[in-house]
């Protein structure tokens, strides 16, 4: 599966969980590089977009590094993690001190809003169960598996949902469109289940995703 040219790049977004994501890939013996170099990102076999904090500061960071067009133009497998998932969508109502919604990358046509926890404590923090679809990211993951979440905003259930969870309301635990996928939870902190999800991602290439899509189309 892994050839000499097989590279996985973690985009250096200056966010706080960068090392955690890198360590998790290293634990499954994946060869990963952390970089914000545009050529290296474009040439990678697969790309990880990590993130914690607010959508606004993360988008600002990507903009300052001139990475927005690079990311939206990627054709290889891309995995957004937590805020990285939220950045793949069109916009977020997580405004911070701003009065307008935050414009995101606009790759997946869904929008981030506040999680309606129905009075349960927020942030939604801890291990919750996911219901998965047949998407290859969740290959071998049993229904009801627990993964670790920390968030107060969420993507609603939509046609792009590839895994769901429930906290006050049902929401997208993972979304995907074409070669882009994102997980709201933290696979890097989700013990064996998280490691399996990262291993599944490491098996993906542009070709494997195209093959899978043509099978689905048939």
């Amino acid at each position, binding site marked *: 599966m892994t050839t000499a040219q097989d590279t996985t790049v973690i985009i250096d977004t200056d966010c706080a969980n960068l090392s*955690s994501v890198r360590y998790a890939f290293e634990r499954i013996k994946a060869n990963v590089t952390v970089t914000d170099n545009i050529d290296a990102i474009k040439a990678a076999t697969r790309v990880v977009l990590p993130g914690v904090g607010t959508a606004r500061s993360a988008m600002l960071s990507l903009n300052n590094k001139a990475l927005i067009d690079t990311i939206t133009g990627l054709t290889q497998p891309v995995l957004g993690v937590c805020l990285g998932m939220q950045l793949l969508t069109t916009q977020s109502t997580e405004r911070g001190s701003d009065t307008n919604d935050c414009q995101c990358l606009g790759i997946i046509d869904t929008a981030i809003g506040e999680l309606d926890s129905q009075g349960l*404590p927020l942030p939604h923090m801890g*291990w919750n169960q996911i219901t998965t679809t047949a998407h290859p990211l969740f290959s071998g993951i049993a229904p009801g598996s627990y993964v670790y979440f920390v968030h107060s905003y969420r993507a609603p259930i939509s046609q792009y949902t590839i895994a769901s969870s*429930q*906290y006050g309301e049902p929401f997208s635990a993972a979304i995907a469109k074409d070669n882009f996928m994102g997980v709201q939870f933290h696979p890097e902190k989700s013990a064996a289940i998280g490691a399996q999800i990262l291993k599944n991602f490491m098996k993906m290439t542009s070709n494997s995703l195209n093959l899978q899509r043509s099978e689905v189309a048939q």
Partner: protein
Amino acid sequence: MLAKRIVPCLDVREGKVVKGVQFRNHEIVGDIVPLAARYAVEGADELVFYDITASAHDRVVDKSWVSRVAEQIDIPFCVAGGIKTIAQAREKLAFGADKISINSPALSNPSLIDRLQDEFGRQCIVIGIDSFYDADSNSYKVKQFTGDEAATKDTQWYTQDWVEEVQKRGCGEIVLNVMNQDGVRQGYDIKQLSMVRAICDVPLIASGGAGTMEHFKRVFTEANVDAALAASVFHKGIIDIQALKRYLISNAIPMRV
């Protein structure tokens, strides 16, 4: 369904895990990384590391073990101890801590909570509160600098007021450590935790007093906390985490297994 969390706490001093009784007479329990790894394998949902000497002696938690834990442990962990500035917090998070817990420095300078929240988001800001029952005034009060008995002092804060204050300023979670109960394993202070639960809109972690499996059951069912923290019962092998989780599941408490 969101699982309730079992959180072993590792008090760290001079790079070793220690445990004292009512915050005193600390004895060495073991090395940090092997103990952390053991708990992760046994099913701990999260780990908390308190550098208990840091605030009292004006030192900052040693960074090197934070990286080593983050490299090897695949569950979330929180680092506490002497974090007083944005730069110190950023360093811990950059080394791989998922959350940072602030206790004494927040009491000295409550605006630290606002600034940390602005910078990192409230999801990684935990406030630790050392609360004790003051028999004279029949009320719960907050203590500061509990890592060192000689430096420990009372504050002007009633526990309820401080719980409201830290939420208003933007913390993402509260660890309520009930000092009268700590280390004596007589059970969590259900009455006090229920009182705090009623005014706590962020996740609440109970700390102090765990001695039996039933204590865990009671704190989840009666005080409705999100997580239960304990140290000595796990370090001394009095309670096995897997057995504890099976027991709690059999009592209809949602647990990750």
